[in-house]
Each structure stands twice: as structure tokens, then as C-alpha cells.
């Protein structure tokens, strides 16, 4: 295991006009595209499989295996859909990646589409990030003009068309089947599975849906080789990823490192906690992953170790909270998010988040009732694994884990408002300035 930063996806972010085709090419971008498009699709799938690349969108499903599920004897068209609907609280890796280096994603799209036999690809971008949509569209246009997209790419006979699609503002559309419905112009709600998207996805055709970071990692595997990629990371979690450090650290930002780095190392790289701060709790992969505490500082941040610690690696959205933060208030804010974003399709998530938010509100106000903590845990038990999709499960994670580690703060919610115990101003980034 290596513990130094290894910028691959982020290597060009600091360049002047990094997002241009010219700069991407200067850095070696598209150099192996023609070779890739002249190799056999099955070989490409094999390379990605062997590299050990796992989905970067949270679940960590092996990317090459997902590609191999596409039935190549199915006469229907195949589609590649890139999930760029990044909306998880704390998660902020895909948006800067697409802003700084859109061509990495586009090159990945071309190679991946060819590998799965798709002639049409889509990037479904979160609708609120208009600047990213514009940048992707500009890059897409550049690629078309350079003959990198469209018919007969670089004379190889390969055709790939790419559409940049703007979502309409719903967290649920990051769920892959809801994303497909939304892309088809329907109301974004998760679909019944089976059939799985690999068999009947977009327009009932075989479809691969991958995260931005997964697809953007593909060109490096082809260029540097599967063995190089597999040499990074840990035994079962190969390669490098972007860790997004946010919250009460001195230097929040994107840190690209091989899988398996620890939070302690990342915080050190980020200049430590902010002044006078000490770590209270953190999320390893956004608000849907159970939170962890200072005792987990040395847990290797890969899929397995974080899982063993009782959480999930998720999107590596490391939200760092210090001693000034009320865990009750924090969990309430997240729960309000889930209540607002619940798509409404299934009962446990729709009604459960509505109820949880009200209980947490009274605990946050110091007006909790006898039995509220048990009620919260029981409601979470009635949601977890009972909802239609994983959004419901995700909504329970912060609550159950917060009660596990900080039950006394919830107990305090029976009589004392969180604002008294943890004045909100102290948690703000500019707490000192605000106090003046």
C-alpha cells in the first residue's frame, strides 16, 4: 500500500485552461484512443475487469463485470449512461472533475461505449450545476469537431454519439433506474427490478450505468495498463480515488490517493483540523453512510475496511465535524434533506422520513419525549430494508449510527435545546470572525 498522493484524475486541474481539448492532449489525453478502438471490445472489458476497477458511485460493484452483463446477442441497441447526478450531501468529486477535466470523462465514455457495443451514450448531469453542463457541452462539441465523437471515430469505423442531459433537480434521479425514467422523460422514480438495466434499461434496451469517476478512470487503465492500476490500492480495492475532505479541517478539498489511505493521513495532508479543533465524528462517504468517530481515524479507507468498521466507503465524501457540532442538529439537517428528497413512491421512506424529521426537530429543540430514542431506532428498523430503493436505507444510517455513538446528546434533547449545548455559530467556518 502506498500512502502518497497519486494525482491521475486530478493531475491537470491546476493547469491553465485545463478543460480544453488542447491541454488534455498536451497531457497525453486521447493518445491511446485509436489503439483502444482498434482492439476487441471483449479485450477492453477483460482489461477493466483485471484492473479491479470498482464503481466509484458508492456501491463499489466491479465495473468490468457490470459491462460483461450486457447481452451482446441482444439485437436491440445498447446504451451507456453516465450518472453525473451528484447530489449526496457532502459528495463533491464529480462536479469539480467535470469542470476541470471534462475530456477525461469523454474519452472514458468513448472507450466504454465501444467496449459494451453502445453507439449512443448519455451523461445525465444534475440540473442545478449549469456551469458544469455548459462546460461538458463545450467539451463535447470540441470532441465532435476533432472527430473524437460521431461517425467513424479516428478512421476506426467506430461510431459513438454523446448527449449531455440536464436533470431536473431530484436526488432520487441519482438512483440508476430513476435516472433512466427521468432520462426517458418520465417522472423520476425507481423501477422494479428485475428486469435489470443490463437487460432492459434505457428504452427497454441493454444499458450500462456508471459513475463519472468510474468512467473517467478507464482511459488511465488503458494507457498505463491494468497491472499499473491493480498495483495501487489494497487487495480487493484497487486503484486510486478522489477523497473529498470538507468541514472542520484546515484545508478542505479534493485529495486523490490510492484506496486504503486513512483519514489520519488525509487530515495531515490537509493541514490538520482547523485551529483549536478536535475530531468528533465524520462520514466516510456522504450522509447515507453511517458516521464514524475519532476511534476510526486509522481505518484504511477502502471498501472492505470501512465496511468492517460498520459503515460504507460510499463516495469518499469525508465530512469532518469537530467538538462544536451538535450531532442531533446535524442528523436533523440530513433527515430534512431525505424528507425533502424522498420520491414518494414507497411508504416507509415517504412517511418514515416525514415522521423522523418531526421527532428529531423536537429533540433538537430540547422538547424530546420519553421513549423518543427508542422510537427513532424502531422507525429506522421499519424503514431499513423495507423501502423500495436504497434511499430509504440511507436515510436511517445517520440516525442509527449517531445514536450508537452519541446517545447522551439525544438524551439531552429531552430537556436542553442543541443550540444551548452547541451554539451553532461556533461550528461555522468563520466562527471567530462571526464572534467579533
Amino acid at each position, binding site marked *: 500500500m502506498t500512502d502518497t498522493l497519486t494525482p491521475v484524475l486530478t493531475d491537470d486541474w491546476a493547469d491553465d485552461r485545463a478543460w480544453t481539448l488542447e491541454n488534455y492532449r498536451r497531457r497525453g489525453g486521447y493518445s491511446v484512443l485509436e489503439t483502444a478502438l482498434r482492439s476487441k471490445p471483449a479485450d477492453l472489458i477483460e482489461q477493466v475487469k483485471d484492473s479491479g476497477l470498482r464503481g466509484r458511485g458508492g456501491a463499489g460493484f466491479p465495473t468490468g463485470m457490470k459491462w460483461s452483463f450486457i447481452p451482446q446477442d441482444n439485437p436491440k441497441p445498447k446504451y451507456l449512461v453516465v450518472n453525473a447526478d451528484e447530489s449526496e450531501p457532502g459528495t463533491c468529486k464529480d462536479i469539480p472533475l467535470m469542470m476541470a477535466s471534462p475530456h477525461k470523462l469523454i474519452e472514458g465514455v468513448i472507450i466504454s461505449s465501444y467496449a459494451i457495443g453502445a453507439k449512443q451514450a448519455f451523461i445525465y448531469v444534475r440540473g442545478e450545476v449549469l456551469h458544469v453542463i455548459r462546460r461538458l457541452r463545450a467539451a463535447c462539441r470540441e470532441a465532435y469537431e476533432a472527430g473524437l465523437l460521431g461517425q467513424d471515430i479516428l478512421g476506426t469505423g467506430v461510431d459513438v454519439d454523446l448527449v449531455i442531459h440536464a436533470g431536473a433537480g*431530484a436526488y*432520487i434521479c441519482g438512483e440508476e433506474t430513476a435516472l433512466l425514467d427521468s432520462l426517458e422523460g418520465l*417522472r423520476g*422514480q425507481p423501477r*422494479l427490478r428485475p428486469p435489470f438495466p443490463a437487460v432492459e434499461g434505457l428504452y427497454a434496451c441493454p444499458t450500462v450505468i456508471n459513475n463519472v469517476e468510474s468512467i473517467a478512470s478507464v482511459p488511465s487503465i488503458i494507457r498505463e495498463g491494468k497491472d499499473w492500476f491493480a498495483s495501487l490500492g489494497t487487495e480487493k480495492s484497487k486503484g486510486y480515488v478522489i477523497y473529498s475532505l470538507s468541514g472542520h479541517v484546515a484545508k478542505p478539498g479534493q485529495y486523490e490517493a490510492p484506496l486504503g489511505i486513512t483519514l489520519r493521513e488525509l487530515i495531515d495532508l490537509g493541514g490538520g483540523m482547523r485551529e483549536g479543533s478536535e475530531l468528533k465524528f465524520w462520514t466516510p462517504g456522504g450522509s447515507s453512510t453511517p458516521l464514524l468517530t475519532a476511534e476510526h481515524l486509522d481505518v484504511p479507507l477502502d471498501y472492505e475496511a470501512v465496511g468492517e468498521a460498520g459503515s460504507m466507503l460510499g463516495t469518499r465524501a469525508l465530512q469532518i465535524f469537530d467538538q462544536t457540532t451538535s450531532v442531533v442538529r446535524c442528523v436533523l439537517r440530513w433527515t430534512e434533506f431525505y*424528507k*425533502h*428528497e*424522498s*420520491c*414518494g*413512491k*414507497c*411508504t*416507509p421512506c*415517504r*412517511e*418514515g*422520513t*416525514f*415522521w423522523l424529521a*418531526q*421527532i428529531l426537530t423536537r429533540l433538537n429543540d430540547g422538547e424530546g*419525549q420519553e421513549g423518543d430514542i427508542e*422510537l427513532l431506532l*424502531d*422507525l429506522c*428498523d*421499519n424503514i*431499513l*430494508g*423495507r*423501502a*423500495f430503493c436504497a434511499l430509504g436505507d440511507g436515510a436511517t444510517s445517520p440516525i442509527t449510527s449517531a445514536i450508537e455513538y452519541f446517545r447522551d446528546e439525544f438524551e439531552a434533547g429531552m430537556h436542553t435545546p442543541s443550540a444551548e449545548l452547541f451554539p451553532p455559530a461556533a461550528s461555522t467556518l468563520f466562527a471567530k470572525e462571526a464572534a467579533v
Partner: protein
Amino acid sequence: MTLEATPQADTPVELVTLTIDGTQVSVPKGTLVIRAAELIGVEIPRFCDHPLLEPVGACRQCLVDIPDAGNGRGFPKPQASCTMEVAPDMVVETQVTSPVADKAQKGNLEFLLINHPLDCPVCDKGGECPLQNQSMSHGYGESRFIDTKRTFPKPIEVSKQVLLDRERCVLCQRCTRFSEEIAGDPFIALLERGADQQIGIGPGPDGGGEPFESYFSGNTIQICPVGALTSADYRFRARPFDLVSTPSITEHDSSGAAIRVDHRRGKVMRRVAGDDPEVNEEWITDKDRFCFTYATQGDRLRTPLVRNEAGDLEAASWPAALAAAARGLQSRKTGVLTGGRLTLEDAFAYSVFARVALQTNDIDFRARAHSAEEAEFLASHVAGTGLGVTYAALEQASTVALVGLEPEDEAGIVFLRLRKAARKHGVKVVSVASHTTRGLTKMFGTLVRTAPGREAEAVAGLELDARSIVLVGERLATSPGAYSAVAAAAEKSGARVAWVPRRAGDRGAVEAGCLPVLLPGGRLVSDAEARADVAAAWGVDSLPESPGRDVSGILADVLSGGRTGTKALVVAGVELDDLPDPEAARKALKKAQFVVSLEVRESEVTQVADVVLPVAPMVERPGTFVSWEGRRRSFEAVLSEPNSLTDLRVLAGIAEELGRPIGFRTVAAARAAFDELDAWDGERADAPTVAADAPADDPLVLDTWRLLVDDGRGQDGQPEYHASARRPVIRANAATLAAAGVEPGETATLVGTTKVTLTLPTEVADLPDGVVWAPGNSGTPLTALGLTRGAPVQILRGDAPKSPSKRGTSPQNSEGGAA
């Protein structure tokens, strides 16, 4: 339990054996776990699940534990049993044996109730509510929710008829799925999200937020598992536990749809769909559901009336009225006209009454356009053929060709089944009609564009095979040669043919012999052997052998006024405006020396009749309708009204006064007498071989049929139902409208041969040049304009001209005037 009708498959069903709650059960492959559990008597609670809708898995109420999916591995979390198919060796633990499943279900019910108003004491659904029932059987007794409920202003009108109380809704999507999948009218949809998610009026096909304009909207009320959807008609009228339910059959079309009539203290409160997988599955039209108040209108006849010497109708006792009727008919040549409301038993009584008591074959049930060719077709292809083409057969056909039939308007259940056949089994629907209707689009059908009167050629050109079915409608009587062409095409291809009349009583009337050429069971009047057979059964020496006349013939005979002409009429269930020439009928009734009218309500006929005999509406009597399939659909009386007599009881009384009894007095006896005749194995009629007319050179001809929701008297007393009617329009293609100087969308006036005109908005549709379509009875019956289908017609721009005889002698004039 509700299971879909198993099609009569020839292949053996592949069975899968699994274990549910420790009990082994074998079920057909593809069965959902929730229904497999029903077979061992375990009812898993559910809301979104409905056996006739696609699984959705939205409500999460039916969660069960699956410790073994059949592959040795179990599911770590409870699974929705409404979306999971059985697998060999699967092990399922429901709430009965699994504490995990039980807690999941209880927890889910608690969630469903937090935002539910729990206003059961004032809710229409209270007492028959799946949410209420399942909360009792599978829920916690008490809620832990002490917080603030989400509320909505209540109710909203999804349509004038269907009202929505959003706070009661559990968002199971049954209504939206029904609308989209079954009816094909997706005008309601989910809006908003999270706890604010709600059902609302969807964008509609034009994106404009249209009201819930569906002929089947009432079904959403019935399948709603809570009290969220109610009808304006029934809302706050009754509690389910005060109602008495009686299964019955619809009287509004020939579908034979099963219904359930709920009454309280002698008054019908509502009607709902019955569950009959072979016929209507669980669906009925809004007409079947809401139109039952016609029988309780102020013009209901309650006592017999006899015209006195001063010429006024006067109440009379039954014996006096029956005697008066018999006296009037005793020595007069009489014709019998019956309409579409009659049951099989009544129709049989009229048939016997005409032949035995009146000694005539002058009887005809066709109170509409009719032809001799049609009578021949009915004799050769319909009468006495028993159960022929069925609903299930429609789903197994290769092609279903519709000729002169618009199922959505004229046979709603046939429409639903054809839509299902096309959606699920890829059955090809072809319509020989003037234009592509919304109904045809919803059946994924194709149009064989045909001007009225030209059906014979179009039918000859259809591609049919032995697995095809041809459904013909009664308006083919206006198209010479069409029935003959259908018979020939069927003969050539081996395709099966079924006749789908509009009215509930029509097929029964054919079977009973209410036709001038037919005796009961398809026996021909012209066949001496058949006459002898029937005469023997009826205990008379002989039956009249001279062929009878049809409706037009009988009326013309009255009008001709010759010494040997018809002098008296017995009329039952006939609206004069339904007849092809209502004016002639009015004159004939006036001219007839003696008219006996058997009616439920006052009508134009009762006004001029000499004896008016009130008869029972269907809720007050038993009977049988024969559906278009040839299926006998018997029903019992809903309300007990000893003073309400059936047609056949009244006819028996007159016949006895005449000294020539018909042989039965009760419905049961009539049915037995009809059944005694049984199937006829003697000579049968030949198929008609009428040649089509040469194309006429009329510049503009009329096509028409009646919309499902229109001004028919069977729909009286239902303002909300009528408010949900489709907007009546005049349709023509752009060129035809332009030739008449009419801009699409602006109003135009239809002019026939009388001073009556009809003004409606216009709409462009894909009709052939020179054909204009208008609804048969929306605003004004087209017969009042002197128009029948296929007749020459004019359209004029704008409102009705003051003197149509002078202005607008041709569309060109009108156009010139506008320019």
C-alpha cells in the same frame, strides 16, 4: 381472492412447488408469491397490488421473509410478495410464521396511518375499507405518532363525477395504473414528491392538464383501497353496512357485464362492478355504474291508464286495463314493436304473444335503422348459435376486425378486452370505419378508411385467417351488401363472426324470435317443419305462415290505411327518435285505431296510446339478458315491488282476456318454456347475398354513431355523469371543412331534411373526402334532422341559419358568402 381467468390453454400448465408457512403448494409458473399464499389460505395484506394491474411494489405492505429463494440462499431483507414470482423449492414465511415479516407489515401500516386523517366515521369507505380492515387485522392498535399530519384542502374534482380527498390517499397508484394500463386514459398522475406526493390531473395527451375524461373513471373509485376517491353521486349518501347487495347484469349495453346493485330501504344507492373473469373481469363503464336513476324519475308510470271517451288517459285497475287492451286488439290486425330494454323472457313472451294471441308474424325489435339483409344475417349467423365468440377468444385471435362498430362508445367492455388483447397478446385490431378514433388508437388498431355505405368493398379487402374474428355492429344495416360481404369473407377465410348490438336486449330478442322472419332458436317462419315444431311446443294447432313485416313495413302498413291494413299496435320500449323515420312513426301512431303501450316511463308512445300498461324496470324484476357472446346472463330482482309487473305477466293477462293464452305467467315459467324449445337442428337460413349499391354521387354524406355518454333516456337523472361526457363535435377532414367554408374548431351546423338542425364545434379528423361525422344523440337526435347514417347532409358555417330551406342550398354557397 381474485385470479385472472385462466385461458383455455391446450398446453399443460407448468407447476412450481414451494413452501409457504410450512405448507407445500404447487402453483403455475410465474405466479406471484402473494397469490400463491392465497391458495393456502394466507392473506398477505396489500394496497398497491391488484391482480389485473402490473405489479409495482410501491406500498411495501406485503413484505414477507424468504429464507430460501429456491437456490439455498435467502434474502437478507423482507421482500415484497406482490412483485416476486415463485421459484422451485422457495421457502416463504409470511406474517403468520415470521416475526420479521409481521413487524415489517405492522410498521408499514403504522407509517401509512400517520398522514391518514382516520376520519373513518365520516368516510364513505368506512366499513368496506381495505386500509381500515388491514389496520385491524395486521396493524398496531395504537399509533405512536403524536406529531403534525400533512393536510390538503379537500376535496378536489378530478372530474365532475370523481372527487379526490388527497389526505386519505395512500399513494398506491392503483387509480393511475388503471387509467394508464386498462382504460388507456392517463389523465391522472402523481404530482410532487415525498409526503407531498399526490394524485392530480395529469398533463394529458396534449399537455394541457385535461380533466379525467374517461368512460371508465368510476373503476378507479372502486379499486381505491381507501376513501380517497369518491363519486359525487354516492359521496356521503350511505354506509356500506346499511346496504343490501344484489348481483345483477348491466342493462345499458350487450356486454353482459356483471354488476352489483346496492340498495337501502327500497332505494338503489349505487352500482359497482361485479367480478366475472370470463366477461367484464372487474371493470364496468361509467354508464353501467352511474345510470340507475332513470327508473325513479318523475315520469315513472305507476298505474295502468286507459283512454276514456273524452280522449284523456285515466287511471284504471289492472283487470280493467287488461280487458280494455284485449278488447281493442281483439279484431284488429296488429303489429308488435319492441325495443332494446327487453329481457330474453319478455322478448319470448312478445314473440309468443304475436304468433299465438295476435296470429301474426308482424313483430320486430329493431327500433333503429334496419334492413332485410340484416334480418337474413341475424337468422343465418346469430340466432340459435349459442355461445360463440367470447371475450377470452378475442385475446387469442390473430386479428379482430371491427366493422361498423366503435367498441369504446357502443360496447365498453369489448373495448377494454380488445385493448388488453392488443397490449398483452399482440392481437391486431383493424377497424373498417370512417376515421381513426381515440378508442382505435388505444387499441393500437389500424384504420381501413371507409365511407359509410362502402363497407362491403372494404370487408372484401380485409386480410383474415382462420384465427381472425370479425365483430360487426348493428349500423351495418345502413350499408347494403355489408352483412353479405362479412358472411362471404368469413366463409372464405374461416374467420369467426360475432354481432355486437348496442342494446342489452337485442341478442335475446333475436333468440326469442322478435323478428318477422324468425321463430325462437333460429327457426325460420318460412319453414313449415319449424312452425310445426314450435306450434307443438306451444300447444296450438298452427302458427301464422305468412312472413311478417319489419318495423318500417308495419308502420307503412298502418299509414297506408287500406281495409286489410294494420289497425293496431303493441309497442314496448321504443323511443320514436330511435327509429329511422320518427315523423312517419308519429303519424302512424296517430293514425292507428288502437295502441297498447307497455312502458316503464312516460314516452311519446304512452302519450298517444289507448291503453298504457306500466311495467317493471329491471331492478324490480328478475330476468335474463343474452350478451353479444350469446352468453345467458340471468339476474334476480333487487327491490321487492309486488305491484310492479313484468312485460310477460302483462302480456299473459291480455292473452288470457283474448282467450289465447301464451302459456306462462312468471319469468321462471317463461324461461322454462323457452328452454323447452331447445336447439334447432332443422333447416337454417342461408347467408344473405346482397350486392352493394353503386357509389352515390352525393357531395357530402353522414357517418354517425352514438357516444357512450349522450342524451339517451337510460341516462336520465345523472348530472355529474353527463358533465363528464366528451365534448360532442362534428368531424370531417380539412378539405371537406374548407369546402364548406368552416375553419377547424369553429362551430358548424348540420342540416338534414327537416327544419331541425344541429350546431356543434368542428374537429379535423382523417375521414374520407365528402364524409362528415356527428354524434347520434348529443344535443339533438340526428333522426330529428331526418338523417340516418349514409344519408346526404350539408354543413354550414356557424350557428343554425334562420331558414335552412332557403340559405345554404349547397356548401359552395355558404363558402361564397363567407368570402
